[in-house]
């Protein structure tokens, strides 16, 4: 039958292989439109037919968004291009953010047979990652690992930082990386000509383009993570320095696994208070080391969390941090304020009666804190937002004086409270260490829950107590440490403690 003969399969049109399909996944506001415009102009200026599309709309408001370009050598007729990327059919995938690269992989736009993936390793965190009380940041390494499997060739660097360093936007560095990738059949100067033809911020764009080009070629220069060598830059008067060396020497006597952490902890508590407080820290640590019959994890974790507990966040610490050497310089460099500019710095402080009372002598503080009327009076006097201009003398002095009250600190109500907390928490861990080493470690780690100021601090403390109460319920079981870990992690999952409630309910169901 003639019809059937015409119906046999024919070879795929070889010219179809000439179509280059390029998709850009970005976060709304990143300038994906500019990059799309350059690529399109580049193709048209070099004898290619090109078509670009995008998905506008509310996604542009900080949401994930997509741009798509197809191009092919121009013929006598316009080729039929697709308006959207198809899974398994993308030649170049540009992801202007690392999780968007992950999203591109999930959507099937990155395949090992054809896709060159150019991704920026920087992160624009999604709201869900930021709001978790603990560490909710998605794993970049998982995405990088997936990209290495999924892509034919994977080019990754922090193209955002590179752009910022060159006073431009990520679109320019990514355009440079695209040029360097060799995926488009155009020479480098054709890319640069497209930027020039665009006409906006040409010099900065060209600089960033060159940086992106270089970074994409030099694959060894991936995002470096600094590993501190443990050398702390400590300076001060001679007698103090001598005493400090003595203490660090003592910290170094601890098992190797703990020593480094203990040194960091020591620095923290000494900065918080003084050298005597540092000695106290090491004493407490020795007490714990004495009951550590395990692999040293208990002591190492204690070195970390004891330092955090001892260097609690009181107003003296805050005032000191805001009036310390180097802060102004740090802010000025962050704000890119030069010599010829003046900088005002405004602090947002909001003391309540609780903060005032915390500075009272211990016994008096306890009395006042228990007296609702007195607390209400203090609130009337003090409880309001204070905007303090620390570039001005008066405000600076006020904080400077508070920051210098370390001598008073040990007598305060707050200090007494914190000491009681430390005693009971470490005591608990020490007692447990003999019976269930792993559980003791988990108890020590629960200090991570205590953080924040005012209400947030109060909530975090209540979570801490609820977790310890929960641990009480499972103590003595074989899997107690495991439950303790789950309790702690659940407490960090959300603000209101709903996940923690769930875990507690589960525990109650079997004890």
């Amino acid at each position: 039958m003639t019809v059937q003969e015409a119906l046999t399969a024919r070879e795929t049109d070889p010219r179809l292989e000439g179509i280059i399909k390029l998709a850009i996944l970005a976060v709304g506001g990143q300038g994906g439109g500019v990059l799309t415009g350059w690529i399109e102009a580049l193709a048209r200026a070099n004898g290619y037919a090109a078509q670009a599309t995008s998905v506008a709309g509310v996604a542009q408001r900080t949401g994930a968004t997509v741009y798509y370009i197809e191009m092919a050598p121009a013929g006598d007729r316009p080729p039929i291009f697709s308006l959207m990327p198809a899974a398994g059919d993308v030649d170049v995938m540009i992801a202007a953010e690392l999780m968007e690269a992950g999203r591109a992989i999930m959507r099937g736009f990155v395949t090992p047979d054809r896709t060159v993936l150019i991704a920026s390793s920087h992160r624009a965190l999604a709201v869900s990652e930021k709001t978790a009380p603990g560490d909710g940041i998605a794993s970049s390494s998982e995405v990088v690992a997936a990209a290495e499997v999924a892509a034919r060739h994977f080019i990754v660097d922090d193209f955002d930082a590179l752009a910022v360093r060159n006073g431009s936007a990520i679109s320019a560095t990514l355009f440079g990386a695209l040029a360097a990738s060799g995926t488009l059949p155009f020479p480098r100067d054709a890319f640069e000509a497209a930027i020039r033809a665009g006409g906006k911020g040409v010099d900065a764009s060209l600089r960033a383009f060159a940086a992106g080009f270089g970074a994409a070629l030099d694959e060894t220069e991936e995002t470096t993570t600094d590993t501190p060598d443990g050398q702390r830059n400590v300076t001060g008067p001679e007698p103090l320095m001598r005493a400090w060396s003595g203490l660090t020497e003592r910290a170094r006597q601890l098992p190797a696994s703990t020593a480094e952490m203990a040194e960091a902890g020591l620095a923290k508590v000494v900065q918080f208070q003084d050298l005597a407080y540092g000695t106290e820290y090491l004493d407490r640590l020795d007490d714990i080391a004495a009951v550590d019959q395990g692999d040293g994890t208990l002591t190492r974790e204690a070195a970390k969390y004891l330092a955090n507990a001892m260097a609690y966040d009181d107003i003296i610490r805050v005032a000191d941090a805001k009036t310390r050497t180097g802060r102004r310089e740090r802010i000025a460099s962050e704000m890119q304020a030069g010599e010829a500019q003046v900088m005002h710095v405004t602090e947002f402080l909001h003391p309540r009666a609780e903060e005032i009372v915390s500075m009272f002598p211990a016994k008096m503080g306890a009395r006042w804190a228990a007296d609702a009327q007195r607390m209400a009076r203090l609130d009337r006097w003090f409880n309001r937002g204070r905007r303090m201009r620390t570039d001005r003398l008066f405000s600076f002095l006020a904080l400077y004086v508070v920051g210098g009250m370390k001598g008073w600190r040990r007598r305060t109500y707050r200090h007494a409270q914190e000491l009681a907390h430390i005693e009971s928490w470490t005591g608990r861990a020490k007692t447990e260490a003999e019976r269930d080493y792993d559980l003791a470690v988990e108890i020590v780690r629960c200090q991570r829950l205590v953080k924040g100021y005012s209400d947030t601090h109060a909530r975090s403390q209540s979570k801490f107590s609820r977790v310890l109460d929960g641990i009480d319920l499972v103590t003595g079981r074989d899997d107690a440490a495991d439950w303790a870990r789950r309790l702690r992690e659940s407490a960090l999952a959300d603000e209101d403690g709903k996940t923690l409630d769930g875990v507690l309910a589960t525990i109650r169901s079997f004890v």
Partner: protein
Amino acid sequence: MAERSFKAEVEHLKLGEGETFTGEGILAITKALLESGVGYVGGYQGAPISHLMDVLADAEELMTDLGIRFEANANEAAAGAMLAASVHYPIRGAVTFKGAVGVNVASDSLANLASSGVTGGAMIIVGEDYGEGSSIMQERTHAFAMKSQFWLLDPRPNLPSIVKAVSDGFELSEASNSPVMLMVRIRACHVTGSFACRDNQRPKLTASEALSDPRSDFSRVVLPPMSYAHEQDKVNNRWPAAEKFVRERKLNEFFGPGDAPLGIVVQGGMYNGVIRALQRLGLADIYGETDVPLYVLNVTYPLISDEFLEFCAGKEHVLVVEEGQPEFIESQLGSFLYRAQSSVKLHGKDLFPMAGEYTGAVMLDAIEGFVRQSAPAMLPAAVRAPNVEKPETPDLSKTVPIRPPGFCTGCPERPIFAAMKLVEKELGKHQIAGDIGCHLFASLPPFEIGGATMGYGLGPAANGAFDGGGEKRPVAIIGDGGFWHSGLSSSFTNMAFNKSDGVAIVVDNFYSAATGGQDIMSSRADNATKLTKHPISKAIKGVGIDWVREVDRTYDVGRMRDTIREALTTPAKGPKVIVASSECMLNRQRREKPLRQKAIKDGRRVETPRFGVDEEICTGDHACMRLSGCPSLSLKKLDDPLRDDPVASIDQSCVGCGNCGEVADAAILCPSFYRADVISNPGKFEQWWAGKRAAVIGWLIRRRATRRLAFGAAS
């Protein structure tokens, strides 16, 4: 001032015969309107046709020169009603809005228009907001075209086809005395390409000329018995006329061999997707020369029975490519076949998914399945029996977070919802209804305020059932866009008339912001052709609502919180309305940034505020994040073995709106935030004085440093 300016592109609209236009789809549509001798244009913004409204606004001068009237209509219903000019007068008119929601709003005027019928060509350009990037419920405009007999054009998504559809559409409208809809999908609005221009035409009769020679004819009025006659006229005259025009002018297209046992019927807008699938299956070449016959419906309503049956002749299998549901086209074509007692097997939703976008993968799978069923020999061996194993890529679905749209950096709406969240912490959760607009992002984390949206301008109306009040008051949020769109009548007079005890918060950001920053009645901008600067509070008081509070700086979280608390607790009866006003930051930055940079360059004194975080003081509890969600307020992992949780960090995209400081204060969060105001080109005295202060402060700091150990960062 709209978000995107098309002033430069508008120059291309002046191109004439023999010249080539290269650019975006929406600009091509505008050019086609000018070439068609349109007499008036209007519409209401909304993705994906927001930019069309912006182009029209930017082209107003050019259009005025041609005698074309441009109206930025108050809403889609007003836009639809404007087409009434084409009922009696031979003037071509076009309006644009987004589908399906714009059509819903306009339905009253559109149904009346369709019943009356038109003399001059009347066209509605609908931006079909379906699939990826869509901001609305997933529905089809198609149903509306069918119920009121609008002829629905769905051209192939390339510039020449879209441009041709505009001029064909006007002629079709006039030939059949019916209004037409031109449907363009999201990507088609933004697709780029080229087409050969024709000269722009002045309208044969302008709207102002028509006023000199008024016409009326009661037979066109939708009243009995004329309305019965309209229906008969539609079915007996207009419809056949339309079918005749579509056939004779060959608006629908045929591609591929005439002789094959299979064929594909495709909506014009889906053509490129089908060709791509055929290309990947080796059944079409780069130019779309296909081995599978295609019947491309550039007019998807009405469907032409004869034309379709001719296409089916000699075929055993026919596939319908129709995106969305219900599958109106497939059902109609099926009934054509049934009535013709045809044995052709009709495929469509058996191979395609009933709901959702026809993506590249969906299209490839369905068409491959179709060919496999109807002519497997056509498939290349590699497709018929694939033996390439696809490598496993790790599953990232648990890793990659969702990224829904949200408030921009510095958005003035953020502090309103931060305040609302603080009030809810005090007074408990409330019944909250939302409207349409950026404020609806507040229903997402971190705020999670508002549980429903019932339509544009309908936020407070959506609380109607709760107007009687109870232990707690219902709260409704509405934007200024929604307020002027229809909110004043549908929501506020509704509240006032029914003596509602509820609370309404009007988010006034000076623009119809979510749609791209178009001016509205209460905009503060000078607008040469539109009336602006009319406060919303005046309108509210005008409808008899007395309890109105204005907060003219939303960033004042404390005041915002107190005002909301007052509205929820005051013993005052009747509706309580808060108008919270601050300019959309996206627009403000676009306006002010160049001015600021110029001022710095010119040597004038400029203060640039930005926020920062003392990372030593931040404890990493992220309480501030839960009251912000600002893109510039992010997290940073510290290089400190003692710290587990990342701390807050503000990047340089911060615009210094103030929310961080205000929230830290109002919610009593923590003292780690600071604001740094960098003053460029300070005065001589200012600089001298700052130097003195810095000297004293520096001395104090050094003094203390000599008595203590100083701990630099680990190096």
